[in-house]
């Protein structure tokens, strides 16, 4: 991307995008920065491929997420409901 035209249009450089790419992919980037990153990723093949790679890795990691065991969840929910409704369960020290 041409340096002067980038400065003139106040566009982000590859280095600037690289510095915030993880935040962008994690939805942790400041809202006003998001369109600038998106614009760069659409225009820059290298950064676009980098973002695609990290997205694929993240998607793969997310697929490892397991729902909590149903029986454990039921037990914990019952304890929480008892606490919410009344107070410390019998036999548990306050």
């Amino acid at each position, binding site marked *: 991307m041409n340096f002067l035209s980038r400065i003139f249009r106040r566009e982000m450089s590859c280095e600037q995008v690289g510095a915030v790419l993880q935040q962008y992919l994690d939805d942790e980037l400041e809202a006003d920065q998001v369109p600038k990153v998106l614009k760069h990723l659409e225009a820059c093949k290298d950064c676009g491929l980098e973002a695609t790679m990290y997205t694929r*890795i993240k998607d793969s990691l997310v697929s490892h997420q397991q729902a*909590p*065991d149903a029986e*454990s969840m039921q037990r*914990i*929910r019952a304890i929480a409901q008892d*606490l919410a409704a009344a*107070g410390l369960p019998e036999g*548990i020290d*306050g």
Partner: protein
Amino acid sequence: MIDVSSSRRKESKGDEDGFTRYVMPELDVLMRVARSITGNSTDADDLVQDTLLRAYRAIDRFDGRYPRAWLLTIMRNAQINRVRRKRPELMRDPDTTLAVVANTDSDAKTPEATVLDKTFDAAVERSLAAIPEQFREAIHLVDIDGLSYNEAAAVLDVPVGTIMSRLHRGRKLIRNDLTMDPEYDRASS
């Protein structure tokens, strides 16, 4: 149903409402994170129960801001106490991290795509298991448990910038490892 001792009942309706409002919606997250930091479901159940009791005792002092981060901080402190009382390490054994095979949506994909995705997932899993533990912890909490940077920072008791740095470095290691993995080459070509 657990019997409740009348002598121990909290009379404050505000505490009751606060517990229902701030704690009940976070039970799923607490269970997932507890599983991550203990490494097994039995200890995870105990840790969540401990966290709930501590939260109940402290709910009248909670200002209502960022309940998830507040609960995760309580959980971290509870786990530190549990580790002091017992023996195990704070995070699960690296060798057993992510022993579960990826569960892909096979109905929506061709058999070939499913195989390639599983190959890729297996390569990512191998890479994740091979990176330093502090990077793996951050990636596990954010990517697998779905915590925000602030919430992961509360669990690990480190600044948010440290979480960002560990994520960046950890993911870069995985990425670099994958590009050298022949299995990944097959899956991505």
